[in-house]
């Protein structure tokens, strides 16, 4: 038992929490936790209203399986959202659509009257539904506090709760004058509520299953003793299944078209990829919700069997029965969450429709044309604020005077069926080019008439009358013929109304010639993927219009600064000179888009029409132009692809060219070096030869020295020439490696032998460190000996007397690593890479007098590369380390 005051305080705290979340989310828009797809997916759960929370449980306890279609219908449709909703989101984004009415009416020629009709339909369907939520809030409030319902509005706590909700919605729902803007604050609050209502029902479910009863099977065992249990948990034959299926279809369309679903799924979609998360997450959410309905409903029946209680409120009555105030209040808050999230989103989206599709286009456009931006913005948001209050009050009145007697379930389903009347026009907009305005409107009106007489009159007429009278009676008798005996009333009316609606829509559409403007939008809707990049090009308009006139209109709504910014962006996008005076079709569509979010698409069109003069175009012309522009788009795409290919090609060519130039320069350098290298010994030989030839009186020992010089220099010459030829062969892959399994340490020893006397001469200490697990590796032994000798020879040259050379063998992963370290002068850092170049040494003759061909390291590098390894030099401590890395297994044994 809880006092009214305490519960009201709890509600206030809860609402304050929502305000806080909305406030934080508005402030931290870019933060990741706000931008994640689960917020979007959770906000879709605005679908689960008080009807789910209380009504479904009532249905499950009394009507059996009929509680399921409300959830089965959506899950059948949701996977297809990947196609349907993605396209609707795109269409809405490029056209700045801000409500269901805009979406449908824009497709049918941007018609003001159609958007007004849709708005009225939504009002008729949704206002009672909002009333239903208020009813749930009020009834559960009194149930929890165990106070009687108050007849006086001013003393009814529900009144104040509802007013607070209205304040919340009107504050956060109208923050942006552009209604197509995303309302992150509201959506985050809704997502939180969706989470909480699920969480609370899980708590209740667990409470019922494990506290009130002894587990799920206990409930099941006991409940199955009810005589009607079996019947309630099977279809009542083919008739039951038929009803069940039609109900699935009703809710399947509702999940796409209900204004609050359209608002959360389409208008508030920030990223297309969020839809993907929703596709699996939302059915999961519904599944968890639904699983608990069964035990709560049957548990409730077991507890309250024979007592006169409303099964719709089992979820509150059960914890109350066990005197558990905490869970009672949590369940109440869960129900409150589901009610107020529905009220908030519905009120916001309806207020946008009322302002943008009803009040502004039919009353205030003339006034707006004369006002400035500040006043217009204020007026527009005020209209929406008042609409929200008006709607909530209207719904409140509805609850007070009409639906007190009826159940949650029936009012909800009736509103689904009325909304479903929009389905032919809605899905036609997405898939059918030829659907026409007249067909859609007439079909819709006919469907509504059937709903009115079939559902609304019987629902509310009997609130005040006990039986049909007079004309009404005659009429119902006349239509007796159409009674489908195996369907209950709601599926029956759904069937007839949708049949007539769709029939009229399709037949009238194909029997009349289409309108060019309508067809224009039809093409844009159906082929949205083709036009998405430059949708302004897809808008066809011919006539005379001046930029200055349109700009004047824009400024009245956007203000001077924003208008100029927008125009600058437009000019950049389409590469238009800012001095251009006449406006083309693209600019007209662009301007309409700028206004659309503020005053609705139809009003935007009317305003722009007022300052431009359009020439008539025939439908045929429109189709031709569209065909052309479609071709252009594909052609453009192809051109872009081709030019990209060309660009790639020219890049390849220029890089190849650069390589060639480098190669050429290298060749020149190489030739220079070769000439230089060859000249040195030749000069020596020649001068020795000259002296020997000129002077016969040279002493024998000097003569011998000269002759020896000639021999060594000739040897060096042939060494250089051999090396050059060898290197050339290596580079051209003319030397095949004979890869065999060899012992690396033995190979090293073989390489060391011929030079050991040199080492001893210089008194150098040479040592090996062996960290190998295995000794057998694959390589070409002769080349490896050559490699070792080259590196060691190089090391010898640069090691001072009494220095150290240390060779370390190790393994890492699949590589054999050989490090040869020698003490001596460091290599200048910038030269570390260059020492493997041919004749590196010769360019740095100031460092050291050349000995050897200067090709040793270049050859070493080639040899290592031929073994698919690499070699590098680095300065380490007191000397230089050469690191050779070789793969243990060589697959490519050919020299490149």
């Amino acid at each position, binding site marked *: 038992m809880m006092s009214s005051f305490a519960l009201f305080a709890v509600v206030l705290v809860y609402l304050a929490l929502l305000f806080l979340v909305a406030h934080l989310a508005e402030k931290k828009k870019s933060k990741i936790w706000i931008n994640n797809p689960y917020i979007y997916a959770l906000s879709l759960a605005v679908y689960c209203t008080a009807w789910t929370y209380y009504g479904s449980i009532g249905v499950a306890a009394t009507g059996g399986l009929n509680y399921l279609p409300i959830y089965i219908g959506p899950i059948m449709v949701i996977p297809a959202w990947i196609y349907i909703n993605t396209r609707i989101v795109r269409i809405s984004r490029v056209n700045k659509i801000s409500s269901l009415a805009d979406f449908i009416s824009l497709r049918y020629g941007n018609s003001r009257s159609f958007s007004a009709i849709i708005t009225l339909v939504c009002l008729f369907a949704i206002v009672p539904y909002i009333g239903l939520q208020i009813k749930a809030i009020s009834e559960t409030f009194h149930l929890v506090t165990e106070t009687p319902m108050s007849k006086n509005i001013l003393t009814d706590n529900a009144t104040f709760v509802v007013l607070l909700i209205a304040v919340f919605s009107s504050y956060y729902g109208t923050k942006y004058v552009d209604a197509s803007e995303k309302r992150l604050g509201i959506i985050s609050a809704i997502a939180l509520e969706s989470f909480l209502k699920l969480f609370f029902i899980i708590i209740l479910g667990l409470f019922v299953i494990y506290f009130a009863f002894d587990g799920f099977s206990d409930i099941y065992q006991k409940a199955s003793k009810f005589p009607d249990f079996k019947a309630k948990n099977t279809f009542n034959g083919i008739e039951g299944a*038929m009803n069940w*299926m039609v109900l699935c279809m009703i809710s399947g369309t509702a999940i796409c078209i209900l204004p609050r679903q359209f608002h959360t799924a389409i208008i508030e979609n920030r990223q297309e990829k969020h839809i993907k*998360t929703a596709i699996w997450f939302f059915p999961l959410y519904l599944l968890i919700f639904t699983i608990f309905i069964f035990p709560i409903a049957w548990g409730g029946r077991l507890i309250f069997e024979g007592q006169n209680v409303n099964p719709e409120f089992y979820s509150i009555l059960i914890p109350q029965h066990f005197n558990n105030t905490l869970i009672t209040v949590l369940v109440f808050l869960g129900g409150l969450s589901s009610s107020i999230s529905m009220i908030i989103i519905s009120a916001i989206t309806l207020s946008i429709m009322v302002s943008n599709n009803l009040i502004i286009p039919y009353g205030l456009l003339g006034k707006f044309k004369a006002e400035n931006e500040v006043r217009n913005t204020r007026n527009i948001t005020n209209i929406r604020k008042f609409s929200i209050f008006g709607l909530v009050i209207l719904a409140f009145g509805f609850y007070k005077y009409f639906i007190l007697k009826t159940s949650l379930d029936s009012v909800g389903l009736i509103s689904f069926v009325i909304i479903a009347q929009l389905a032919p026009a809605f899905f036609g907009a997405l898939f059918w080019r030829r659907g026409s305005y007249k067909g859609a409107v007439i079909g819709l009106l006919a469907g509504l008439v059937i709903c009115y007489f079939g559902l609304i009159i019987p629902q509310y007429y009997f609130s005040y009358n006990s039986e049909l009278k007079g004309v009404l009676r005659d009429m119902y008798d006349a239509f007796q013929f159409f009674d489908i005996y195996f369907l209950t009333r709601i599926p029956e009316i759904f069937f007839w109304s949708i049949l007539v609606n769709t029939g009229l829509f399709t037949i009238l559409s194909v029997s009349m010639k289409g309108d060019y403007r309508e067809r224009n939008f039809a093409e844009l809707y159906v082929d949205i993927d083709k036009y*998405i990049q430059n949708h302004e090009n897809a808008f066809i308009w011919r006539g005379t219009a001046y930029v200055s006139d349109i700009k004047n209109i824009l400024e009245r709504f956007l203000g001077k600064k924003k208008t100029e910014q927008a125009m600058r962006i437009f000019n950049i996008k389409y590469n238009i000179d800012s001095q251009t005076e006449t406006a083309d079709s693209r600019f007209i569509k662009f301007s309409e888009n700028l206004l659309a979010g503020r005053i609705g698409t139809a009003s935007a069109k009317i305003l722009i029409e007022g300052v431009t003069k359009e020439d008539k175009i025939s439908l045929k012309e429109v189709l031709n132009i569209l065909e052309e522009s479609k071709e252009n788009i594909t052609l453009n795409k192809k051109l872009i692809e081709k030019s990209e290919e060309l660009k790639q090609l020219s890049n390849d060519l220029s890089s190849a060219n650069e390589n060639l130039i480098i190669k050429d320069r290298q060749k020149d350098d190489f030739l220079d070096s070769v000439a230089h290298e060859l000249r040195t010994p030749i000069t020596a030989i020649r001068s020795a030869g000259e002296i020997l030839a000129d002077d016969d009186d040279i002493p024998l020992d000097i003569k011998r020295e000269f002759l020896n010089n000639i021999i060594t220099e000739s040897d060096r010459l042939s060494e250089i020439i051999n090396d050059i030829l060898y290197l050339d062969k290596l580079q051209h892959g003319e030397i095949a490696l004979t890869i065999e399994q060899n012992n690396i340490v033995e190979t090293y020893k073989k390489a060391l032998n011929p030079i050991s006397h040199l080492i001893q001469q210089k008194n150098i200490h040479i040592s090996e460190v062996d960290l190998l697990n295995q000794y057998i590796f694959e390589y070409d032994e002769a080349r490896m000996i050559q490699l070792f000798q080259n590196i060691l020879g190089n090391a010898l040259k640069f090691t001072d007397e009494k220095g150290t050379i240390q060779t370390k063998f190790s393994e890492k992963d699949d590589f054999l690593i050989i490090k040869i370290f020698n003490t001596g002068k460091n290599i200048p850092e910038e030269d570390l890479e260059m020492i493997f170049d041919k004749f590196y040494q010769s360019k740095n003759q100031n460092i050291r007098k050349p000995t050897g061909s200067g090709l040793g390291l270049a050859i070493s590098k080639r040899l290592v590369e031929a073994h698919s390894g690499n070699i590098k030099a680095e300065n380490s401590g007191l000397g230089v380390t050469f690191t050779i890395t070789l793969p243990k297994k060589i697959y490519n044994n050919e020299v490149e």
Partner: protein
Amino acid sequence: MNDFVHQLSFINNHSLIMKKRHEQKLIILSFGLLIAFSIPVSLLFNSEKEVFGYPMILVYVFAVWMLSIIVSFVIIKKYDE
């Protein structure tokens, strides 16, 4: 500023969120569910018999439901671009 900049800047956001072929897998799943819950098929499970101790039709409905969640989850995660 925001309200018209994003109108122009969505260009880099236009690419398909999924390949057509994988998109169609989900649409086929949708049709599959339609068939699974349609009259001839769902009536097959409309019996008073019990499976795992629960009414057959309930087990069937929730199993199909669960399966559809798993299938769509797998398709979406596997072909995420």
